[in-house]
């Protein structure tokens, strides 16, 4: 096979991986701060995806334009969920929260199945079949836009945590819960804020990814699992790690699809997950637990 094909596939995988990374970034924020394992992460992304599909079908609104509104919507949803459902659960054992979100995931997946049916939905924008040529490399327009959008949102999030006072407060919360309480931070609200931000990432990612991936209800759990693989590989609690993990998984899947059959590509992601869990559980950029 000519070398260009490898390059094209690799770049395609990299761009898709950036969107995975954005989704996983949300999970990283949620876990890193609130210490909740959001097992409904992917399912929530499919909600955003379906919303994008509907908005496009009904009002011809480009998903990329809907990125911010959907992110805002999911932010509100996340805030509400944290305040009402999860905050009472903070003192419960870890697997209690896990089960709670698992239950939500089941409800969402099947709720979507009831509302939208099992068939795949997609968004065909006017530029859906465009591509750009950079030398020998051909890149789909949708993937390029998706990748760039993901990077922009991620950059916005990074700056928020770096420079905004609330962002720093959230980081303090994550580092030291008791310390944050002592200093007078309203931890419950900061948690809700974080969960909201995490879901905002998911909302944005959902709007973006619908350009390149068709949505069906079962995509939810697949994406949840993918998010975990990305976050664990890249490093739980590390935001750059989430992006790095996303890119890595995107690349792995793309190359696996090329060398083996496309349907088996997730096997490689799982194998990677197992390896990481066994040999470097803190992930590539994660910190070793004390």
């Amino acid at each position, binding site marked *: 096979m000519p070398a260009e094909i490898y390059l094209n596939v690799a770049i395609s995988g990299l761009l898709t991986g950036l969107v995975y990374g954005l989704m996983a970034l949300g999970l990283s924020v949620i876990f890193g701060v609130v210490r909740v*394992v959001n097992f409904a992460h992917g399912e929530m992304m499919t909600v955003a995806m379906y919303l994008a599909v509907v908005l496009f079908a009904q009002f011809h609104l480009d998903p990329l334009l809907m990125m911010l509104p959907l992110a805002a919507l999911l932010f509100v949803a996340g805030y509400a969920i944290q305040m009402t*459902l999860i905050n*009472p659960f903070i003192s*419960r054992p*870890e*697997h*209690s929260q*896990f*089960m*709670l979100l*698992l*239950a*939500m*995931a*089941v*409800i969402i*997946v*099947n*709720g979507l*199945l*009831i509302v939208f049916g*099992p068939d795949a939905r997609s968004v065909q924008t006017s530029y859906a079949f465009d591509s750009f040529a950079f030398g020998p490399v051909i890149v789909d327009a949708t993937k390029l836009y998706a990748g760039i959008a993901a990077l922009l949102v991620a950059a916005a999030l990074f700056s928020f945590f770096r420079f905004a006072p609330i962002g720093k407060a959230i980081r303090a919360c994550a580092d030291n819960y008791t310390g944050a309480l002592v200093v007078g931070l309203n931890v419950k609200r900061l948690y809700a804020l974080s969960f909201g931000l995490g879901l905002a990432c998911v909302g944005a990612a959902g709007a973006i990814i619908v350009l390149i991936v068709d949505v069906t*209800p079962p995509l939810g*759990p697949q994406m949840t*699992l993918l998010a*975990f*693989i990305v976050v*664990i590989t890249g490093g739980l609690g590390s935001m750059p790690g989430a992006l790095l993990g996303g890119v890595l998984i995107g690349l792995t899947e793309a190359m696996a699809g090329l060398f083996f*059959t496309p*349907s*088996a590509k*997730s*096997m490689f992601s*799982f*194998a990677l*997950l*197992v390896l990481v*869990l*066994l*040999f470097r*559980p803190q992930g590539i950029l994660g910190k070793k637990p004390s």
Partner: protein
Amino acid sequence: MMDLLLHGVPRHALVLLGLVLAALIAAPWFANDYLLTVLIVILYFAYTGIAWNVMMGFAGQLSLGHALYVGLGAYATAALYVHFGIGPWVGMPVAIFISVASGVVIGFLAFRFGVAGVYFAILTIAFCEFARVGFDHFGWVSGSSGLFLPVSNYTRNDLVNLRGQPVMFYYVILALTAVAFVLCHLLLRSRVGYFWQAIREDEVAARSLGINTFRYKMIAIAVSSGMTAPAGVFYAFYYNNLFPEQTFHILRSIEIILGPIIGGVGTLFGPIIGAFLITGLAEVLQEFLTAYGLDIPGVKRVFYGVCLLLVIMALPHGIWPPLARLLRLDKRQEKSKEPEA
């Protein structure tokens, strides 16, 4: 052994148990075909719930990939039957062996490397998903097209090959569930059972009392996976078709844990009560909707999710503990009022 079995069990508990068992044995005489199939499903989930409960309820290791052991057991015996004509009972040891082997591998990798809690759960999901995708490409068992068992006439009940009427399957699953129940009862009061519970409650403290936690966690996963395999055998021979996409789907794993969580993780009766409740109520819901002419796929599953949510929020220890207190089957006391005479 009878002593170990019965020592300390209150009389009224045995009576109750006897009545329930009698009712279940007599059920086929009173139940129509539809109800019989519902009972079979209930008992199937009671059985898998009991098997899963050994790992989670007793030893505290959260497995969300138990469908792996069902699937492996199912495919093993189905393949042996389809390709070599080997009957399910002869094939069962093979099924159990394969399930236990995979459980041991997962357990070894996880426990040796300190993968615990939620990470362990994710690991179990990953392995099951790996099997799901892998079996899709596994030609010898027909991959994604599905493996079909030859179905002959249903008038004769062939227990050896598990071909026959639903009644036969009902008694098979009832027997399996009863055996599993008794086995768990014995396990709980044995040394293994105590050590498992210690590990579940506080692994560090357990180690400080001389318990080799690695060994006992391995035993837990081996027993749990081994107990789950026969469910797979039953599944294969009852439904007569296997598809990797369905058999290893994560939803199967979630269905397995619903009963124990709703009934009460770690208790003996929890998985059984939970299975009755969740499956029974789901069927009622389905019937209700059908009566109104509504056929909504996915409603049952939403119902499962809602039940799970409600139970986790309101009754985190499940329905059995308060029920047990009501039936005076709980040996535990609240703070004692007066000292023993």
